[in-house]
């Protein structure tokens, strides 16, 4: 690990806005601004929050064979992904675990965003690029684009704010994207995010990022929010954080991400298998997954955090919490954990060992906070 932290193109703006900066995945990132995490979280649920997520990796794949090539690394239907459509996916390893999760978009041809535009996690981006160069570099060109920043504008009023800069963005529905000029810069905008709310992620040239952020913050609905609120928002939305809720040892089926593996890539489908770990993942799909990621709600108002041991009524260890907090909007202790299948059923009660006490928690379907995506 390097001692010097990288900064995003919005670093100076964060400091001017009074952000508290913390190291995250090798970057100096704002964890919160002056009003604090809870106010930022609630503002995102009620209006619109602007996040700097420029630390995440943006990668373009170039070439007619890019989609078929990428399918050899992800158990996701990329070949039939329509122009302007976006899909969630993950790189798998040979034992069926997850190397990273990512967003995949097929930009309109000739717009300068390649044949596929990928957004990957900051902490995995170097390894992801290496993985693609090694395994599919002979079939398509893999181009990391660190010269672009990434902003997320999230919340029920995000569309109203962004439409004032370019009303064309109103055409987008959840999980679609296209090229729009914003504050004079050519941007790739997708209608998606990591909060459970309607909203957008905006890829912008680094040198225009601050002007765009300023133009968005000038909208009356918009306030900046840090990585702290981003984490509580995604947890309420039941979304996984790589390295915590999913990693190289969890299969997508254990993680409850079955929905992301389309029929065409499953046994019996036209392009079934032929990705790393397919044998294990297919067994898990058929019902052999030993455990399952579940949502838990605390019956007492005490935070239950990552790493907390979960036990049954007799004190036998069942699993470990992978993410947990006292959720600002849900206003309860919520957590995610992997539990054996027979304990993963809704309403099943388990106990969290916190400071020598056993706090009851109940398995609950996720999301904890209903999604409010714009599907048209």
């Amino acid at each position: 690990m390097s001692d010097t932290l990288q900064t995003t193109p919005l670093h100076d703006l964060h400091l001017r806005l009074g952000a508290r900066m913390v190291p995250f995945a090798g970057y100096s990132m704002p964890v919160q601004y002056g009003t604090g995490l809870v106010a930022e979280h609630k503002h995102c649920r009620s209006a619109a929050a602007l996040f700097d997520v420029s630390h995440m990796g943006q990668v373009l794949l170039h070439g007619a064979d890019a989609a078929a090539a990428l399918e050899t690394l992800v158990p996701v239907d990329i070949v039939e992904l329509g122009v302007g459509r976006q899909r969630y996916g993950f790189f798998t390893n040979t034992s069926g675990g997850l190397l990273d999760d990512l967003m995949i978009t097929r930009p309109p041809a000739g717009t300068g965003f390649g044949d596929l535009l990928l957004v990957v996690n900051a902490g995995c981006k170097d390894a992801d690029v290496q993985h693609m160069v090694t395994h599919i570099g002979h079939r398509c060109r893999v181009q990391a684009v660190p010269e672009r920043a990434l902003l997320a504008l999230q919340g029920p009023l995000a569309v109203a704010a962004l439409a004032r800069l370019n009303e064309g963005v109103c055409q987008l529905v959840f999980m679609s994207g296209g090229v729009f000029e914003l504050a004079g810069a050519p941007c790739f905008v997708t209608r998606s995010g990591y909060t459970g709310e309607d909203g957008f992620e905006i890829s912008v040239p680094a040198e225009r990022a601050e002007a765009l952020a300023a133009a968005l913050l000038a909208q009356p609905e918009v306030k900046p929010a840090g990585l702290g609120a981003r984490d509580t928002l995604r947890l309420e939305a039941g979304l996984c954080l790589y390295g915590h809720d999913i990693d190289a040892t969890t299969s997508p089926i254990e993680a409850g991400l079955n929905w992301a593996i389309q029929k065409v890539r499953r046994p019996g489908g036209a392009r079934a298998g032929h990705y790393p770990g397919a044998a294990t993942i297919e067994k898990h799909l058929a019902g052999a997954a030993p455990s399952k990621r579940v949502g838990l709600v605390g019956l007492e108002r005490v935070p239950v955090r990552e790493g907390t041991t979960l036990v049954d009524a007799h004190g036998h260890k069942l699993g470990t919490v992978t993410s947990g907090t006292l959720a600002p909007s849900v206003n309860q202790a919520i957590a995610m954990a992997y539990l054996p299948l027979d304990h993963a059923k809704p309403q099943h009660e388990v106990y969290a060992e916190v400071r020598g006490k056993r706090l009851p928690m109940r398995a609950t379907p996720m999301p904890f906070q209903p999604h409010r995506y714009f599907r048209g």
Partner: protein
Amino acid sequence: MTTMYTPDHEWINIEDHEAAVVGITPHAQDALGDVVFVELPEIGRTLKKGEIAGVVESVKAAADLYMPVSGEIVEVNEALRADPALANTDPMGNGWFFKVHITEMAEFDQLMDTPAYDALLKSL
């Protein structure tokens, strides 16, 4: 009224001869962020200086609350238990945590006074 401070960013204020009031400093609440949960000690318990007396948790983090001096817990702030955000909005006042009957006054005298604590904050 004398207020003294610990290196763990707690304050203790001698209210009268019977009990001292303990809370966390503005610096501590600012570092923690929005406080959402507190665990307070049992009334009647006797704890030594440095022992864990309770827990204060924000959305992001949990921190232990230490006994600034040895003594017996004589009262806890039920209003803080009900509204943990008091630790943020009024850390030196209504956001107090517990009251302690000090057994070793020498331990109190060894804590930092206001100028010493201000100097500590400046050095951070």
